[in-house]
């Protein structure tokens, strides 16, 4: 019944997911359902398995056990084609800013004129209008991350995964990225994002998945998890205590 409901609401589900290395479980998520409108933020200390889970959800890593289910079916190329991911360190092609965007639009076989229009729209969206011809490699950290997000959005994803996109950025650059994420979310793109930043979780999250030691220790509405956490691990993390 839950799978059926999930199918109708276009949700992401994780069932018995395990990734083990050298006999140690790096990720062990028995049951997780992301069925809200989002943004969903994965929160937790280093080594909690947040990035690993994100990669599993995007199909970049195949789990040793268990599966990811999207829209009621096991995650496959048809699903991952409707997803996009932005990494902690933006990986930009050694081309101009606009060529980075053109690369993904060409793959969608969009006509040249339509591509030019779309690139202009995207550059405006990311505040990079005056950088179009500049080498993408010469952008600042914040600009590079904005371009990475724009490129991901250019694929027209239903779900956008972001792995700590602002971890190396100053507050001003972080604010610009957060606005882009909020606008994408408002347009209906499901956001699933990893962060260490409790303040950021408070600003962006609709629901929060709290992780520790490869496990999901708590999942619920952001306000509930942040203000009245149920698990001891969540309480300690949110209180700024050491969590291993």
């Amino acid at each position, binding site marked *: 019944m839950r799978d059926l409901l999930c199918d109708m609401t276009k949700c992401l589900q994780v069932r018995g997911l395990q990734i083990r290395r050298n006999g140690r479980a790096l990720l062990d998520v028995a049951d997780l359902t992301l069925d809200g409108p989002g943004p969903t933020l994965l929160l937790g200390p280093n080594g909690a398995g947040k990035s690993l889970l994100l990669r599993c959800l995007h199909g*970049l890593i195949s789990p040793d056990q268990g599966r990811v289910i999207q829209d009621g079916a096991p995650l496959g190329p048809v699903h*991952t084609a409707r997803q996009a991911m932005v990494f902690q360190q933006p990986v930009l092609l050694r081309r101009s800013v606009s060529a980075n965007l053109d690369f993904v639009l060409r793959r969608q076989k969009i006509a040249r004129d339509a591509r030019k229009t779309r690139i202009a729209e995207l550059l405006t969206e990311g505040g990079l209008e005056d950088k179009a011809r500049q080498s993408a490699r010469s952008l600042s950290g914040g600009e590079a991350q904005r371009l990475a997000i724009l490129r991901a959005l250019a694929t027209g994803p239903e779900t956008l995964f972001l792995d700590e996109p602002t971890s190396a950025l100053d507050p001003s650059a972080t604010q610009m990225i957060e606005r882009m994420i909020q606008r994408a979310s408002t347009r209906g793109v499901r956001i699933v994002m990893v962060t260490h930043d409790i303040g950021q979780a408070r600003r962006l999250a609709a629901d929060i998945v709290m992780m520790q030691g490869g496990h999901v220790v708590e999942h619920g509405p952001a306000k509930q998890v942040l203000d009245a956490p149920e698990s001891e691990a969540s309480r300690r993390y949110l209180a700024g205590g050491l969590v291993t």
Partner: protein
Amino acid sequence: MQGLASEFSLAVALIFEGDSELWAIVLLSLKVSVFAVLISALIGMPVGAALAVARFPGRRSLIVLMNALMGFPPVVVGLLVYLMLSRSGPLGVLELLYTPTAMIIAQVVLVTPIVAALTRQVIEMLAEEYSEQLRSLGVSRLASVPVLLWDARLALVTALLAGFGRAIAEVGAVIIVGGNINHVTRVMTTTIALETSKGNLALALALGAILIGIAVVVNAMVSAASLRAEQEGLRHA
């Protein structure tokens, strides 16, 4: 000592007075080597890139073989190409022996492993960096090859120039398959060898100076290309 000095001044005169025979030899050398490098690039770059991104049994052994081929003795390559192109050889009917085409073939055999091996190294490093992002964008391993080749273009110029350096300085293989025929297959290196043995040091010295000049220019270009590629990488890091 005086004789040597006069040979030097004669060599300088040959270069700067535009001796037609000398410059014809230089031009043929450049033509043969440039063609050889271009053909090697067409073969070696896709092969190197495919080896960098593909995963299949025996890949490691192929890489070892390719690296070993970089040090293949030129005279042995010349001998093998000679056997292929000689009248009784499988390609004898093409009558290519002792033509510039035969020299290009020999140089292609020598240069392709260099271009392929260097391309593999460059592309493998870039593929490591791009791998997750390209997969996330739905680019398959095979489709990633042209993307990686284009994005590694600066570093690959270094591979091509290294191949050109090997080709232009090559003597053993081209003398076997080219035969060092005057006005037909005589290139800089084979002419230097011949003219030195004949005692015509002026022409040998003039060609030697030009060959060194080309080597210096090629090395300067390699350094510039490497520096530019490095800067591109550093900007990203």
